[in-house]
């Protein structure tokens, strides 16, 4: 077990390192940073001086070393688009909004997916089950950004139930959360359905029935509690997906989170900020993956041996 965790941990570090390498290489690809920093009338000596000051005269691997040490300390340089702010500051400032939205979206998708999943397992093979299958299929096929626009059109523009964009009270969060959570509904639903089917077939469920318990109590209390284990371990994966999915949703609803920040930064070619967001997100994404794997390995010994 320890060996498995150690191996997965190293693998995750490796993945983050590759990401940093990609980011660094691309940053250098995007052109000489000096051309952006210096005014047009700068002389050759100016170039020399400034490049010495920023360490750009050193060989690339030394530069990468400097970048890596700074990045490890959370220093990605100053933003170009938002002058006077460091890239990391901006990320920390926007992160709570993203986490709030992702958390709420997770809640919404569970609230939608759980009953449907249970229902389709209990009523397997009936029209209910077919309807659930169709919902799952739609979940995989609907482009999130378009769903957001459609929801906005119907519920914000026509019916006026919710505001169209921005961040405020609960009513601001509902449409973005549905948009973000929609894709997960299908995944959670199918997981709930398959594990419910397994549990419904087990001995202790028969016992509860023999005992004469009401059917709703059998299903919603005894079965669901046992069927919930598999989907729960899946949540960390979802958390990772929600983080990256927030880029699209936040851009549709102008939700002032990290996703919107990175989009604005890309448009302004503010590479420092893009770097910071990408590394932070990649870190969260990769670490949640790691946590899930470890959790799974605890629950299912077969995985450890792979």
């Amino acid at each position, binding site marked *: 077990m320890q060996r498995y965790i150690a191996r997965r941990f190293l693998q995750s570090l490796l993945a983050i390192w590759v990401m940093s390498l990609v980011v660094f290489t*691309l940053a250098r690809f995007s052109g000489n940073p000096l051309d952006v920093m210096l005014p047009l009338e700068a002389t050759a000596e100016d170039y020399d001086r400034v490049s010495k000051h920023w360490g750009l005269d050193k060989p690339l691997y030394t530069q990468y070393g400097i970048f890596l040490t700074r990045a490890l300390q959370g220093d990605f340089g100053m933003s170009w688009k938002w002058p006077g702010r460091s890239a990391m500051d901006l990320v920390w400032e926007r992160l709570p909004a993203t986490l709030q939205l992702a958390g709420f979206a997770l809640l919404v998708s569970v609230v939608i997916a759980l009953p449907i999943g249970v229902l389709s397992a209990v009523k397997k093979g009936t029209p209910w089950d077919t309807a659930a299958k169709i919902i799952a299929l739609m979940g*995989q096929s609907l482009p999130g950004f378009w769903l957001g626009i459609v929801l906005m059109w119907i519920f914000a523009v026509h019916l006026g139930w919710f505001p169209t964009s921005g961040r405020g009270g609960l009513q601001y969060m509902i449409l973005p959360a549905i948009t973000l959570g929609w894709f997960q509904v299908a995944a959670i639903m199918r997981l709930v359905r398959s594990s419910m089917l397994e549990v419904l077939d087990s001995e202790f469920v028969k016992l509860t029935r023999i005992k004469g318990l009401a059917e709703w109590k059998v299903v919603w209390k005894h079965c669901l509690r046992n069927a919930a284990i598999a989907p729960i371990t899946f949540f960390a994966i979802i958390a990772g997906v929600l983080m990256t999915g927030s880029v699209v949703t936040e851009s549709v609803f102008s939700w002032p989170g990290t996703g919107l920040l990175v989009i604005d930064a890309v448009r302004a070619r503010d*590479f420092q900020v893009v770097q910071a967001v990408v590394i932070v997100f990649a870190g969260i994404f990769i670490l949640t993956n790691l946590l899930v794997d470890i959790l799974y390995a605890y629950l299912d010994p077969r995985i450890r041996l792979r």
Partner: protein
Amino acid sequence: MATVTVRTLPWYAAPRVAHAMRRVRRWPLVPLVILTFLLVIPALLAPQVAPHDPLKGSLSKRLKAPAWLEGGSIEYPLGTDKMGRDLLSRMIYGARVSLAVSAVAIFVGGAIGTTLGLMSGYFGGRIDGLIMRLVDISLSLPTILLALVLVAAVGPSFWTVITVLVVLLWARYARLVRGETLSIKERDFIARARVAGASHTRIMTKYLFPNVVNSLIVLATLQVGYVILLESALSFLGAGLPRPTPAWGLMVADGRELIVSAWWVSMFPGLAIMLTVLALNLLGDWLRDRLDPKLRNV
């Protein structure tokens, strides 16, 4: 002596029709029809079917409503966008863009993945370890962010999108092909080929590859929908194809600010994406069940 005449039933006779129907039913009709009319015909015959130029518009005709609404005309069946370009024509060319992007990305990604997967499974050992680590890493990279970094660095273009998609896609092929290769290479005909003096390259291309093609086709079909969805999301974010390419994702993005006054601009392209991806998913599921049921978990 009575002569027995064998009369063939006419084609419209009930048993024949029933038989034909049964044959047809085995095909996933709905997805195939949707795909033909939404993706294949428009993509292949765009210049012939599109009523207008997808890039040229006239400002006097901007934001015209679809034909069945007030202010619409049959000349622009689905209305026009804010540059006065015909929406239907742009969507038809958009099918071409979607198909081109997904075909190129899946072909390149599939080729790289298959080659590496074959090598990984066939040679084993160090090569296998290295390639499989690469697969793990590439599967754990966050997609959209990778695309955003690349676009921030080099700007949006067709090849930027292809690069991002290929980086993302190859790993699944590599993993799949490696798994299949591992089991196939133990079989007798491979050993025989080796005894007969076939080179490694020859064994891989002539003996192993033909045996993994089925799985490759299934995976590729299942991925077309995913790739179309991803490409449109990237284009929507401005990290995909550059304007004024008539890409479906870009068209949805263009219509976003117009949602109050001209809902059709983003509604129809989005509908096209959804139906296409839906049909591709159905077709992929069907193919998987027919050709390769063990792929269920891929």
